[in-house]
Protein backbone atom coordinates (compact mmCIF):
# COMPACT_ATOMS: atom_id res chain seq x y z
CA UNK A 1 0.00 0.00 0.00
CA UNK A 2 3.02 2.30 0.33
CA UNK A 3 3.30 2.36 -3.45
CA UNK A 4 -0.36 3.38 -3.68
CA UNK A 5 0.43 6.32 -1.41
CA UNK A 6 3.34 7.46 -3.59
CA UNK A 7 6.03 6.18 -1.22
CA UNK A 8 8.90 3.80 -1.90
CA UNK A 9 8.41 0.36 -0.29
CA UNK A 10 11.20 -2.26 -0.20
CA UNK A 11 10.59 -3.29 -3.82
CA UNK A 12 8.33 -2.38 -6.71
CA UNK A 13 5.13 -4.33 -6.10
CA UNK A 14 3.77 -6.56 -8.85
CA UNK A 15 0.53 -8.16 -9.91
CA UNK A 16 -0.31 -10.23 -12.95
CA UNK A 17 -3.28 -11.72 -14.76
CA UNK A 18 -2.17 -14.86 -16.53
CA UNK A 19 -4.29 -16.13 -19.41
CA UNK A 20 -5.03 -19.82 -18.99
CA UNK A 21 -3.33 -20.45 -22.33
CA UNK A 22 -0.13 -18.81 -21.06
CA UNK A 23 -0.15 -20.76 -17.80
CA UNK A 24 -0.56 -24.01 -19.71
CA UNK A 25 2.38 -23.14 -21.96
CA UNK A 26 4.49 -21.94 -19.01
CA UNK A 27 3.91 -25.16 -17.04
CA UNK A 28 4.91 -27.28 -20.03
CA UNK A 29 8.01 -25.11 -20.52
CA UNK A 30 9.03 -25.55 -16.90
CA UNK A 31 8.65 -29.30 -17.23
CA UNK A 32 10.75 -29.23 -20.42
CA UNK A 33 13.60 -27.24 -18.93
CA UNK A 34 13.59 -29.54 -15.91
CA UNK A 35 12.63 -26.96 -13.35
CA UNK A 36 9.63 -28.90 -12.18
CA UNK A 37 8.64 -32.54 -12.10
CA UNK A 38 4.90 -32.98 -12.23
CA UNK A 39 2.35 -34.88 -14.21
CA UNK A 40 -0.39 -32.42 -13.40
CA UNK A 41 -2.25 -31.06 -16.39
CA UNK A 42 -3.34 -27.47 -16.10
CA UNK A 43 -7.05 -27.13 -16.63
CA UNK A 44 -7.56 -24.10 -18.79
CA UNK A 45 -10.67 -22.01 -18.40
CA UNK A 46 -11.22 -18.97 -20.59
CA UNK A 47 -8.78 -16.54 -19.00
CA UNK A 48 -8.00 -18.35 -15.79
CA UNK A 49 -6.32 -21.67 -15.18
CA UNK A 50 -7.19 -24.18 -12.51
CA UNK A 51 -4.05 -25.29 -10.72
CA UNK A 52 -3.91 -27.42 -7.61
CA UNK A 53 -0.12 -27.59 -7.31
CA UNK A 54 1.29 -24.32 -5.97
CA UNK A 55 4.57 -25.06 -7.73
CA UNK A 56 2.68 -24.72 -11.00
CA UNK A 57 0.98 -21.42 -10.13
CA UNK A 58 2.92 -18.53 -11.74
CA UNK A 59 1.45 -16.01 -9.28
CA UNK A 60 3.01 -17.88 -6.35
CA UNK A 61 6.12 -19.00 -8.21
CA UNK A 62 7.02 -15.41 -9.09
CA UNK A 63 6.08 -14.10 -5.66
CA UNK A 64 3.52 -11.49 -6.70
CA UNK A 65 2.48 -8.91 -4.13
CA UNK A 66 -1.14 -8.35 -5.07
CA UNK A 67 -3.92 -10.64 -6.20
CA UNK A 68 -7.26 -10.02 -7.86
CA UNK A 69 -10.42 -11.68 -6.56
CA UNK A 70 -13.88 -10.98 -7.93
CA UNK A 71 -17.29 -12.46 -7.15
CA UNK A 72 -20.11 -13.09 -9.56
CA UNK A 73 -21.28 -9.61 -10.50
CA UNK A 74 -23.59 -10.47 -13.36
CA UNK A 75 -26.72 -8.30 -13.32
CA UNK A 76 -28.84 -11.47 -13.34
CA UNK A 77 -27.83 -14.34 -11.08
CA UNK A 78 -28.47 -17.31 -13.35
CA UNK A 79 -27.13 -20.76 -13.94
CA UNK A 80 -25.50 -20.37 -17.34
CA UNK A 81 -26.48 -22.74 -20.12
CA UNK A 82 -23.26 -24.01 -21.66
CA UNK A 83 -23.31 -26.16 -24.77
CA UNK A 84 -20.27 -27.38 -26.65
CA UNK A 85 -19.63 -28.73 -30.09
CA UNK A 86 -16.24 -29.83 -31.32
CA UNK A 87 -15.55 -26.35 -32.68
CA UNK A 88 -17.36 -24.00 -30.31
CA UNK A 89 -18.71 -23.46 -26.84
CA UNK A 90 -21.87 -21.38 -26.62
CA UNK A 91 -23.03 -20.00 -23.28
CA UNK A 92 -25.63 -17.70 -21.80
CA UNK A 93 -24.53 -15.14 -19.26
CA UNK A 94 -26.10 -13.21 -16.42
CA UNK A 95 -25.49 -10.10 -18.54
CA UNK A 96 -28.37 -11.29 -20.71
CA UNK A 97 -26.09 -12.00 -23.62
CA UNK A 98 -25.10 -15.20 -25.38
CA UNK A 99 -21.51 -15.75 -26.37
CA UNK A 100 -19.77 -18.14 -28.73
CA UNK A 101 -16.15 -19.07 -28.20
CA UNK A 102 -14.07 -21.16 -30.52
CA UNK A 103 -12.43 -24.09 -28.76
CA UNK A 104 -8.73 -23.79 -29.37
CA UNK A 105 -5.58 -25.44 -28.11
CA UNK A 106 -1.96 -24.44 -28.40
CA UNK A 107 -1.19 -27.46 -30.52
CA UNK A 108 -3.73 -26.29 -33.11
CA UNK A 109 -1.33 -23.46 -33.91
CA UNK A 110 -3.67 -20.64 -32.91
CA UNK A 111 -5.64 -19.43 -29.93
CA UNK A 112 -9.07 -17.90 -29.57
CA UNK A 113 -8.96 -16.15 -26.20
CA UNK A 114 -12.07 -14.04 -26.67
CA UNK A 115 -15.69 -14.88 -27.25
CA UNK A 116 -18.00 -13.46 -29.87
CA UNK A 117 -21.19 -11.87 -28.52
CA UNK A 118 -24.00 -13.27 -30.63
CA UNK A 119 -27.23 -12.25 -28.87
CA UNK A 120 -28.49 -9.78 -26.28
CA UNK A 121 -31.63 -9.66 -24.16
CA UNK A 122 -31.78 -5.86 -24.49
CA UNK A 123 -32.79 -5.50 -28.10
CA UNK A 124 -33.82 -1.83 -28.29
CA UNK A 125 -33.30 1.38 -26.32
CA UNK A 126 -36.78 0.91 -24.85
CA UNK A 127 -35.69 -2.39 -23.29
CA UNK A 128 -33.24 -0.65 -20.94
CA UNK A 129 -36.04 0.46 -18.63
CA UNK A 130 -37.56 -3.03 -18.58
CA UNK A 131 -34.38 -4.77 -17.41
CA UNK A 132 -34.53 -5.88 -13.77
CA UNK A 133 -31.27 -6.26 -11.87
CA UNK A 134 -30.92 -9.03 -9.30
CA UNK A 135 -29.49 -8.37 -5.84
CA UNK A 136 -25.74 -7.62 -6.12
CA UNK A 137 -25.26 -8.77 -2.52
CA UNK A 138 -26.97 -12.16 -2.98
CA UNK A 139 -24.83 -14.53 -0.85
CA UNK A 140 -24.70 -17.11 -3.65
CA UNK A 141 -22.53 -14.69 -5.63
CA UNK A 142 -19.90 -14.93 -2.89
CA UNK A 143 -20.29 -18.35 -1.29
CA UNK A 144 -21.31 -20.68 -4.14
CA UNK A 145 -18.98 -22.17 -6.78
CA UNK A 146 -18.53 -19.68 -9.59
CA UNK A 147 -19.32 -19.85 -13.26
CA UNK A 148 -19.57 -16.19 -14.21
CA UNK A 149 -19.11 -16.53 -17.93
CA UNK A 150 -17.91 -13.04 -18.89
CA UNK A 151 -16.09 -11.94 -15.78
CA UNK A 152 -12.86 -13.68 -16.39
CA UNK A 153 -13.22 -17.32 -15.53
CA UNK A 154 -14.88 -18.80 -18.53
CA UNK A 155 -16.83 -22.00 -18.66
CA UNK A 156 -15.16 -23.98 -15.91
CA UNK A 157 -16.91 -24.12 -12.56
CA UNK A 158 -14.44 -22.60 -10.12
CA UNK A 159 -14.32 -22.43 -6.32
CA UNK A 160 -16.43 -19.78 -4.65
CA UNK A 161 -15.23 -16.21 -4.21
CA UNK A 162 -14.84 -16.69 -0.48
CA UNK A 163 -12.89 -19.92 -0.94
CA UNK A 164 -10.58 -18.00 -3.22
CA UNK A 165 -10.26 -15.14 -0.75
CA UNK A 166 -9.43 -17.49 2.11
CA UNK A 167 -6.71 -19.19 0.08
CA UNK A 168 -4.89 -15.94 -0.78
CA UNK A 169 -5.73 -13.36 1.87
CA UNK A 170 -2.69 -14.06 4.04
CA UNK A 171 -0.23 -13.90 1.15
CA UNK A 172 -1.35 -10.99 -0.99
CA UNK A 173 -2.75 -7.49 -0.92
CA UNK A 174 -6.26 -8.09 -2.28
CA UNK A 175 -7.83 -6.18 -5.15
CA UNK A 176 -11.52 -6.44 -5.89
CA UNK A 177 -13.14 -5.59 -9.19
CA UNK A 178 -16.29 -4.04 -10.60
CA UNK A 179 -17.26 -2.74 -14.02
CA UNK A 180 -18.28 0.81 -14.68
CA UNK A 181 -21.25 1.94 -16.77
CA UNK A 182 -19.69 1.63 -20.26
CA UNK A 183 -18.40 -1.89 -19.62
CA UNK A 184 -21.73 -3.04 -18.23
CA UNK A 185 -23.64 -1.32 -21.02
CA UNK A 186 -21.81 -2.94 -23.91
CA UNK A 187 -21.82 -6.38 -22.36
CA UNK A 188 -25.59 -6.19 -22.08
CA UNK A 189 -26.39 -4.50 -25.39
CA UNK A 190 -23.40 -5.13 -27.66
CA UNK A 191 -20.76 -2.55 -28.55
CA UNK A 192 -22.25 -1.32 -31.81
CA UNK A 193 -25.81 -1.26 -30.50
CA UNK A 194 -24.75 0.57 -27.36
CA UNK A 195 -22.80 3.16 -29.32
CA UNK A 196 -25.72 3.84 -31.64
CA UNK A 197 -28.01 4.24 -28.64
CA UNK A 198 -25.51 6.66 -27.09
CA UNK A 199 -25.69 8.79 -30.24
CA UNK A 200 -29.44 8.58 -30.79
CA UNK A 201 -31.04 7.97 -27.38
CA UNK A 202 -28.60 9.34 -24.80
CA UNK A 203 -31.22 9.97 -22.11
CA UNK A 204 -32.31 6.32 -22.08
CA UNK A 205 -28.67 5.25 -21.91
CA UNK A 206 -27.94 7.63 -19.06
CA UNK A 207 -30.87 6.36 -17.01
CA UNK A 208 -29.64 2.80 -17.49
CA UNK A 209 -26.07 3.74 -16.59
CA UNK A 210 -27.33 5.09 -13.28
CA UNK A 211 -28.90 1.73 -12.52
CA UNK A 212 -25.73 -0.10 -13.59
CA UNK A 213 -23.76 1.95 -11.11
CA UNK A 214 -26.27 1.33 -8.31
CA UNK A 215 -25.66 -2.37 -8.93
CA UNK A 216 -21.88 -1.92 -9.12
CA UNK A 217 -21.82 -0.04 -5.83
CA UNK A 218 -23.74 -2.86 -4.15
CA UNK A 219 -21.29 -5.48 -5.40
CA UNK A 220 -18.30 -3.35 -4.42
CA UNK A 221 -19.63 -2.79 -0.89
CA UNK A 222 -20.16 -6.50 -0.33
CA UNK A 223 -16.69 -7.37 -1.70
CA UNK A 224 -15.12 -4.90 0.72
CA UNK A 225 -17.18 -6.18 3.65
CA UNK A 226 -16.31 -9.82 3.01
CA UNK A 227 -12.68 -9.53 1.91
CA UNK A 228 -11.46 -6.28 3.44
CA UNK A 229 -9.70 -5.59 0.14
CA UNK A 230 -8.01 -2.16 0.20
CA UNK A 231 -8.02 -1.73 -3.57
CA UNK A 232 -10.67 -1.96 -6.26
CA UNK A 233 -10.27 -2.22 -10.03
CA UNK A 234 -12.91 -0.44 -12.05
CA UNK A 235 -13.19 -2.14 -15.44
CA UNK A 236 -13.63 0.63 -17.98
CA UNK A 237 -11.92 0.58 -21.40
CA UNK A 238 -12.18 3.87 -23.20
CA UNK A 239 -9.64 3.53 -25.97
CA UNK A 240 -8.47 1.44 -28.84
CA UNK A 241 -5.11 1.46 -30.58
CA UNK A 242 -5.15 5.01 -31.90
CA UNK A 243 -7.76 6.88 -29.92
CA UNK A 244 -10.92 7.02 -27.88
CA UNK A 245 -13.95 4.94 -28.72
CA UNK A 246 -16.28 7.88 -28.22
CA UNK A 247 -15.85 11.61 -28.02
CA UNK A 248 -14.69 13.34 -24.84
CA UNK A 249 -17.96 15.29 -24.94
CA UNK A 250 -20.02 12.08 -25.02
CA UNK A 251 -17.89 10.54 -22.26
CA UNK A 252 -18.35 13.62 -20.11
CA UNK A 253 -22.11 13.68 -20.73
CA UNK A 254 -22.92 9.97 -20.31
CA UNK A 255 -20.18 8.23 -18.35
CA UNK A 256 -18.40 10.79 -16.19
CA UNK A 257 -21.24 11.37 -13.67
CA UNK A 258 -21.80 7.67 -12.85
CA UNK A 259 -18.05 7.01 -12.72
CA UNK A 260 -17.57 9.85 -10.24
CA UNK A 261 -20.41 8.46 -8.13
CA UNK A 262 -18.83 4.99 -8.18
CA UNK A 263 -15.40 6.32 -7.18
CA UNK A 264 -16.94 8.33 -4.33
CA UNK A 265 -18.68 5.21 -3.08
CA UNK A 266 -15.41 3.25 -3.23
CA UNK A 267 -13.61 5.96 -1.27
CA UNK A 268 -16.41 5.98 1.27
CA UNK A 269 -15.49 2.37 2.04
CA UNK A 270 -11.88 3.44 2.67
CA UNK A 271 -10.74 1.75 -0.54
CA UNK A 272 -8.62 3.15 -3.39
CA UNK A 273 -9.84 2.94 -6.99
CA UNK A 274 -7.71 1.77 -9.93
CA UNK A 275 -9.32 2.50 -13.28
CA UNK A 276 -8.70 -0.04 -16.05
CA UNK A 277 -8.77 1.40 -19.55
CA UNK A 278 -7.19 -0.37 -22.50
CA UNK A 279 -6.03 1.36 -25.63
CA UNK A 280 -4.93 4.91 -26.15
CA UNK A 281 -6.07 7.32 -23.45
CA UNK A 282 -5.02 10.89 -24.27
CA UNK A 283 -3.94 13.31 -21.56
CA UNK A 284 -7.31 15.09 -21.61
CA UNK A 285 -9.00 11.78 -20.75
CA UNK A 286 -6.53 11.07 -17.97
CA UNK A 287 -7.24 14.49 -16.54
CA UNK A 288 -10.97 13.72 -16.65
CA UNK A 289 -10.38 10.43 -14.84
CA UNK A 290 -8.36 12.23 -12.17
CA UNK A 291 -11.24 14.70 -11.85
CA UNK A 292 -13.56 11.71 -11.33
CA UNK A 293 -11.36 10.83 -8.37
CA UNK A 294 -9.49 7.71 -9.46
CA UNK A 295 -6.30 6.85 -7.60
CA UNK A 296 -4.58 4.59 -10.12
CA UNK A 297 -4.58 3.91 -13.86
CA UNK A 298 -4.23 0.48 -15.48
CA UNK A 299 -2.88 -1.06 -17.75
CA UNK A 300 -1.11 1.62 -19.92
CA UNK A 301 -1.11 -0.36 -23.13
CA UNK A 302 2.27 0.28 -24.72
CA UNK A 303 1.33 -0.73 -28.25
CA UNK A 304 -1.43 1.90 -28.12
CA UNK A 305 1.13 4.59 -27.33
CA UNK A 306 0.75 4.72 -23.54
CA UNK A 307 3.99 5.61 -21.78
CA UNK A 308 4.51 5.09 -18.05
CA UNK A 309 7.27 7.72 -17.91
CA UNK A 310 5.06 10.33 -19.53
CA UNK A 311 2.25 9.60 -17.08
CA UNK A 312 4.68 9.68 -14.16
CA UNK A 313 6.20 12.99 -15.20
CA UNK A 314 2.86 14.68 -15.81
CA UNK A 315 0.48 13.08 -13.32
CA UNK A 316 2.73 11.16 -10.93
CA UNK A 317 1.62 13.14 -7.91
CA UNK A 318 -2.06 12.35 -8.55
CA UNK A 319 -2.06 8.93 -10.12
CA UNK A 320 -0.52 5.55 -9.37
CA UNK A 321 0.56 3.56 -12.42
CA UNK A 322 -0.51 -0.08 -12.47
CA UNK A 323 0.85 -1.71 -15.60
CA UNK A 324 3.11 -0.51 -18.38
CA UNK A 325 4.95 -3.71 -19.40
CA UNK A 326 4.55 -4.31 -23.11
CA UNK A 327 3.09 -7.74 -23.78
CA UNK A 328 3.16 -7.30 -27.56
CA UNK A 329 6.60 -6.12 -28.68
CA UNK A 330 8.67 -6.74 -25.51
CA UNK A 331 7.35 -9.88 -23.79
CA UNK A 332 5.83 -10.92 -27.12
CA UNK A 333 9.18 -10.63 -28.92
CA UNK A 334 10.67 -13.79 -30.42
CA UNK A 335 11.64 -16.21 -27.66
CA UNK A 336 14.98 -15.22 -26.17
CA UNK A 337 15.06 -11.63 -27.47
CA UNK A 338 16.19 -10.41 -24.05
CA UNK A 339 17.75 -7.21 -25.36
CA UNK A 340 14.33 -5.88 -26.41
CA UNK A 341 12.71 -6.97 -23.16
CA UNK A 342 15.44 -5.46 -20.98
CA UNK A 343 15.26 -2.09 -22.72
CA UNK A 344 11.48 -1.74 -22.38
CA UNK A 345 11.21 -2.96 -18.82
CA UNK A 346 14.18 -1.18 -17.28
CA UNK A 347 13.21 2.05 -19.04
CA UNK A 348 9.63 1.95 -17.75
CA UNK A 349 10.79 1.00 -14.25
CA UNK A 350 12.20 4.52 -13.93
CA UNK A 351 8.57 5.54 -13.42
CA UNK A 352 8.63 3.63 -10.11
CA UNK A 353 11.09 6.09 -8.58
CA UNK A 354 9.47 7.71 -5.57
CA UNK A 355 6.84 4.95 -5.43
CA UNK A 356 3.49 5.15 -7.18
CA UNK A 357 3.98 2.21 -9.55
CA UNK A 358 2.81 -1.38 -9.50
CA UNK A 359 4.31 -3.61 -12.17
CA UNK A 360 1.86 -5.39 -14.44
CA UNK A 361 1.82 -6.49 -18.05
CA UNK A 362 -0.28 -4.11 -20.12
CA UNK A 363 -3.21 -6.51 -19.86
CA UNK A 364 -3.38 -10.26 -19.39
CA UNK A 365 -0.22 -12.23 -20.22
CA UNK A 366 -1.47 -13.97 -23.37
CA UNK A 367 -0.57 -17.43 -24.57
CA UNK A 368 1.50 -15.86 -27.34
CA UNK A 369 4.17 -14.71 -24.85
CA UNK A 370 7.08 -17.20 -24.80
CA UNK A 371 7.50 -18.47 -21.22
CA UNK A 372 11.26 -17.82 -21.28
CA UNK A 373 10.57 -14.17 -22.10
CA UNK A 374 8.24 -13.82 -19.15
CA UNK A 375 10.71 -15.60 -16.93
CA UNK A 376 13.39 -13.12 -18.02
CA UNK A 377 11.13 -10.20 -17.04
CA UNK A 378 10.87 -11.73 -13.59
CA UNK A 379 14.64 -12.05 -13.41
CA UNK A 380 14.87 -8.33 -14.17
CA UNK A 381 12.29 -7.62 -11.49
CA UNK A 382 14.33 -9.54 -8.91
CA UNK A 383 17.61 -7.95 -9.99
CA UNK A 384 16.51 -4.34 -10.45
CA UNK A 385 13.18 -4.03 -8.63
CA UNK A 386 14.46 -3.27 -5.14
CA UNK A 387 14.58 0.27 -3.79
CA UNK A 388 16.55 2.45 -4.19
CA UNK A 389 16.32 1.80 -7.90
CA UNK A 390 19.42 1.59 -10.09
CA UNK A 391 18.44 0.70 -13.60
CA UNK A 392 21.85 0.20 -15.18
CA UNK A 393 22.20 1.55 -18.71
CA UNK A 394 18.54 2.60 -18.75
CA UNK A 395 18.57 4.60 -15.54
CA UNK A 396 17.27 8.13 -16.02
CA UNK A 397 16.14 11.08 -13.96
CA UNK A 398 12.46 11.75 -13.75
Amino acid at each position, binding site marked *: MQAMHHEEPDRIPAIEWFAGEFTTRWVEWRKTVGKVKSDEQVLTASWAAVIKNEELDPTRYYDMDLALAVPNSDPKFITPEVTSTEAYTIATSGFGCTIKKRNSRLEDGYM*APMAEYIDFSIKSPDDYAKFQFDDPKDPRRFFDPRQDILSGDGFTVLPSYMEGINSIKNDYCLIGGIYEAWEGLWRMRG*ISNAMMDMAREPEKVKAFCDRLIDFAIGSMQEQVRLSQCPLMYIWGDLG*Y*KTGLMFSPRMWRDIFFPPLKRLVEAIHKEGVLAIYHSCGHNPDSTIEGLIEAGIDGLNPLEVKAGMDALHIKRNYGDKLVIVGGIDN*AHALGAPAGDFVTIRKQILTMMNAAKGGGLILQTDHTVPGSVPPENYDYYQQLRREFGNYPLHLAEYDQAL
Partner: protein
Amino acid sequence: MTDFNFAKMAENVFLGNRTETVEMTETALRAGIKPTTIIENGLIPGMQRLGEEFSKGDVFLPEMLIGADAMKASLALIKPLLKKDETKRHGTIVLGTVLGDVHDIGKNIVSWMLEGAGFNVVDLGVDVPPQQFIDIIKKENPQILGLSALLTTSTHQIGVLIEELKKQGLRDNLKVMIGGASVDATYAARVGADGYAIDAVSAVAKAKELVGTKG
Protein backbone atom coordinates in the same frame (compact mmCIF):
# COMPACT_ATOMS: atom_id res chain seq x y z
CA MET B 1 -34.78 16.25 -61.30
CA THR B 2 -31.63 18.31 -61.26
CA ASP B 3 -32.73 20.29 -58.20
CA PHE B 4 -32.62 17.26 -55.89
CA ASN B 5 -30.70 18.30 -52.78
CA PHE B 6 -27.84 15.80 -52.75
CA ALA B 7 -25.90 17.98 -50.32
CA LYS B 8 -28.74 17.63 -47.83
CA MET B 9 -28.78 13.87 -48.34
CA ALA B 10 -25.04 13.69 -47.72
CA GLU B 11 -25.54 15.80 -44.60
CA ASN B 12 -28.19 13.36 -43.35
CA VAL B 13 -25.82 10.43 -43.86
CA PHE B 14 -23.06 12.35 -42.09
CA LEU B 15 -25.36 13.08 -39.14
CA GLY B 16 -26.71 9.54 -39.03
CA ASN B 17 -30.28 10.68 -39.70
CA ARG B 18 -31.64 7.34 -40.83
CA THR B 19 -35.31 8.32 -41.30
CA GLU B 20 -34.48 11.44 -43.30
CA THR B 21 -31.94 9.56 -45.44
CA VAL B 22 -34.48 6.87 -46.26
CA GLU B 23 -37.17 9.46 -47.07
CA MET B 24 -34.81 11.32 -49.40
CA THR B 25 -33.82 8.06 -51.09
CA GLU B 26 -37.47 7.23 -51.74
CA THR B 27 -38.09 10.74 -53.06
CA ALA B 28 -35.11 10.51 -55.39
CA LEU B 29 -36.13 7.11 -56.71
CA ARG B 30 -39.71 8.27 -57.29
CA ALA B 31 -38.32 11.21 -59.22
CA GLY B 32 -36.50 8.83 -61.52
CA ILE B 33 -32.98 9.60 -60.42
CA LYS B 34 -30.62 6.77 -61.32
CA PRO B 35 -29.66 4.59 -58.35
CA THR B 36 -25.95 5.04 -59.09
CA THR B 37 -26.41 8.81 -59.09
CA ILE B 38 -27.96 8.65 -55.61
CA ILE B 39 -25.04 6.60 -54.36
CA GLU B 40 -22.36 8.75 -55.92
CA ASN B 41 -23.85 12.17 -55.16
CA GLY B 42 -25.64 11.49 -51.88
CA LEU B 43 -24.30 8.50 -49.99
CA ILE B 44 -20.62 8.49 -50.90
CA PRO B 45 -20.00 12.18 -50.05
CA GLY B 46 -21.70 11.67 -46.67
CA MET B 47 -19.68 8.59 -45.82
CA GLN B 48 -16.49 10.11 -47.19
CA ARG B 49 -16.87 13.16 -44.95
CA LEU B 50 -17.55 10.89 -41.99
CA GLY B 51 -14.47 8.83 -42.76
CA GLU B 52 -12.26 11.87 -43.17
CA GLU B 53 -13.44 13.46 -39.92
CA PHE B 54 -13.02 10.09 -38.19
CA SER B 55 -9.43 9.93 -39.45
CA LYS B 56 -8.81 13.44 -38.11
CA GLY B 57 -10.28 12.49 -34.74
CA ASP B 58 -13.21 14.89 -35.06
CA VAL B 59 -15.88 12.19 -35.04
CA PHE B 60 -15.85 8.87 -33.20
CA LEU B 61 -17.26 5.37 -33.51
CA PRO B 62 -20.85 6.15 -32.42
CA GLU B 63 -21.17 8.80 -35.14
CA MET B 64 -19.56 6.46 -37.69
CA LEU B 65 -21.99 3.72 -36.77
CA ILE B 66 -25.16 5.80 -37.09
CA GLY B 67 -23.87 7.29 -40.35
CA ALA B 68 -23.23 3.82 -41.74
CA ASP B 69 -26.65 2.74 -40.48
CA ALA B 70 -28.30 5.56 -42.42
CA MET B 71 -26.30 4.67 -45.54
CA LYS B 72 -27.15 0.99 -45.25
CA ALA B 73 -30.85 1.78 -44.90
CA SER B 74 -30.68 3.78 -48.11
CA LEU B 75 -28.64 1.12 -49.90
CA ALA B 76 -31.23 -1.48 -48.96
CA LEU B 77 -33.70 0.42 -51.13
CA ILE B 78 -31.25 1.09 -53.93
CA LYS B 79 -29.40 -2.21 -54.30
CA PRO B 80 -32.25 -4.27 -55.75
CA LEU B 81 -32.50 -1.67 -58.53
CA LEU B 82 -28.84 -1.82 -59.53
CA LYS B 83 -27.78 -3.75 -62.59
CA LYS B 84 -25.33 -6.56 -61.93
CA ASP B 85 -22.29 -4.68 -63.21
CA GLU B 86 -23.25 -1.61 -61.18
CA THR B 87 -22.97 -3.46 -57.87
CA LYS B 88 -19.26 -3.98 -58.32
CA ARG B 89 -17.97 -1.01 -60.23
CA HIS B 90 -14.55 -1.26 -58.64
CA GLY B 91 -14.50 -5.04 -58.23
CA THR B 92 -15.08 -7.57 -55.46
CA ILE B 93 -13.42 -7.65 -52.06
CA VAL B 94 -13.58 -10.59 -49.68
CA LEU B 95 -13.20 -9.37 -46.09
CA GLY B 96 -12.92 -11.04 -42.72
CA THR B 97 -11.29 -11.10 -39.29
CA VAL B 98 -8.80 -13.96 -39.02
CA LEU B 99 -9.19 -17.23 -37.13
CA GLY B 100 -9.26 -16.86 -33.35
CA ASP B 101 -10.13 -13.15 -33.36
CA VAL B 102 -13.68 -11.89 -32.86
CA HIS B 103 -13.16 -8.12 -33.23
CA ASP B 104 -15.51 -6.70 -35.80
CA ILE B 105 -16.15 -2.96 -35.48
CA GLY B 106 -13.12 -1.76 -37.45
CA LYS B 107 -13.61 -4.43 -40.07
CA ASN B 108 -17.31 -3.51 -40.35
CA ILE B 109 -16.55 0.17 -40.88
CA VAL B 110 -14.06 -0.73 -43.61
CA SER B 111 -16.70 -2.99 -45.14
CA TRP B 112 -19.35 -0.25 -45.18
CA MET B 113 -16.96 2.37 -46.55
CA LEU B 114 -15.86 0.04 -49.34
CA GLU B 115 -19.44 -0.81 -50.17
CA GLY B 116 -20.33 2.86 -50.19
CA ALA B 117 -17.38 3.49 -52.50
CA GLY B 118 -18.67 1.05 -55.09
CA PHE B 119 -17.00 -2.24 -54.27
CA ASN B 120 -18.87 -5.51 -54.07
CA VAL B 121 -18.01 -6.58 -50.52
CA VAL B 122 -18.25 -10.19 -49.40
CA ASP B 123 -17.89 -9.91 -45.64
CA LEU B 124 -17.23 -13.29 -44.00
CA GLY B 125 -17.45 -11.89 -40.47
CA VAL B 126 -15.09 -12.76 -37.62
CA ASP B 127 -13.02 -15.77 -36.55
CA VAL B 128 -12.77 -17.00 -40.14
CA PRO B 129 -10.69 -20.15 -40.72
CA PRO B 130 -8.23 -20.10 -43.66
CA GLN B 131 -10.19 -22.74 -45.53
CA GLN B 132 -13.33 -20.60 -45.45
CA PHE B 133 -11.45 -17.72 -47.05
CA ILE B 134 -10.08 -20.06 -49.69
CA ASP B 135 -13.46 -21.57 -50.50
CA ILE B 136 -15.05 -18.16 -51.00
CA ILE B 137 -12.08 -16.88 -53.05
CA LYS B 138 -12.52 -19.82 -55.42
CA LYS B 139 -16.23 -19.07 -55.67
CA GLU B 140 -16.23 -15.26 -55.93
CA ASN B 141 -12.92 -14.71 -57.74
CA PRO B 142 -12.32 -11.37 -55.96
CA GLN B 143 -9.72 -8.78 -56.89
CA ILE B 144 -8.83 -8.14 -53.24
CA LEU B 145 -8.71 -10.08 -49.99
CA GLY B 146 -8.93 -7.87 -46.88
CA LEU B 147 -7.82 -9.35 -43.55
CA SER B 148 -8.32 -7.83 -40.11
CA ALA B 149 -6.44 -8.80 -36.93
CA LEU B 150 -6.48 -7.15 -33.51
CA LEU B 151 -5.20 -9.90 -31.27
CA THR B 152 -1.49 -10.64 -31.13
CA THR B 153 -2.45 -14.28 -30.58
CA SER B 154 -4.06 -14.45 -34.02
CA THR B 155 -1.99 -12.14 -36.19
CA HIS B 156 0.16 -14.96 -37.56
CA GLN B 157 -2.96 -16.35 -39.24
CA ILE B 158 -2.45 -13.70 -41.93
CA GLY B 159 0.87 -15.26 -42.91
CA VAL B 160 -0.61 -18.75 -42.68
CA LEU B 161 -3.37 -17.81 -45.10
CA ILE B 162 -1.07 -16.04 -47.57
CA GLU B 163 1.17 -19.11 -47.70
CA GLU B 164 -1.84 -21.34 -48.27
CA LEU B 165 -3.04 -19.09 -51.10
CA LYS B 166 0.38 -19.47 -52.76
CA LYS B 167 0.29 -23.24 -52.36
CA GLN B 168 -3.09 -23.44 -54.00
CA GLY B 169 -2.14 -21.13 -56.86
CA LEU B 170 -4.61 -18.44 -55.78
CA ARG B 171 -2.18 -15.68 -54.86
CA ASP B 172 -1.04 -14.34 -58.23
CA ASN B 173 -4.32 -12.79 -59.32
CA LEU B 174 -5.33 -11.60 -55.88
CA LYS B 175 -4.26 -8.51 -53.95
CA VAL B 176 -4.08 -8.89 -50.17
CA MET B 177 -4.52 -5.92 -47.85
CA ILE B 178 -4.47 -6.01 -44.07
CA GLY B 179 -5.47 -3.83 -41.13
CA GLY B 180 -6.19 -3.91 -37.41
CA ALA B 181 -4.51 -3.03 -34.15
CA SER B 182 -1.92 -5.80 -34.17
CA VAL B 183 -0.47 -5.12 -37.63
CA ASP B 184 1.32 -2.33 -39.46
CA ALA B 185 3.02 -1.68 -42.80
CA THR B 186 6.17 -3.46 -41.66
CA TYR B 187 4.20 -6.56 -40.79
CA ALA B 188 2.37 -6.39 -44.12
CA ALA B 189 5.68 -6.34 -45.98
CA ARG B 190 7.05 -9.18 -43.86
CA VAL B 191 4.20 -11.56 -44.63
CA GLY B 192 4.00 -10.55 -48.29
CA ALA B 193 0.73 -8.62 -48.23
CA ASP B 194 0.22 -6.02 -50.95
CA GLY B 195 -0.92 -3.26 -48.66
CA TYR B 196 -1.77 -2.02 -45.18
CA ALA B 197 -4.40 0.51 -44.17
CA ILE B 198 -4.54 2.23 -40.81
CA ASP B 199 -8.22 3.16 -41.03
CA ALA B 200 -11.31 2.93 -43.21
CA VAL B 201 -10.54 5.96 -45.36
CA SER B 202 -7.07 4.74 -46.22
CA ALA B 203 -8.50 1.26 -46.75
CA VAL B 204 -10.75 2.61 -49.51
CA ALA B 205 -7.86 4.52 -51.06
CA LYS B 206 -5.60 1.46 -50.85
CA ALA B 207 -8.27 -0.79 -52.37
CA LYS B 208 -8.72 1.58 -55.30
CA GLU B 209 -4.97 1.77 -55.75
CA LEU B 210 -4.66 -2.00 -55.75
CA VAL B 211 -7.30 -2.45 -58.44
CA GLY B 212 -6.04 0.53 -60.41
CA THR B 213 -9.16 2.64 -60.03
CA LYS B 214 -9.14 6.40 -59.71
CA GLY B 215 -11.64 8.51 -57.75
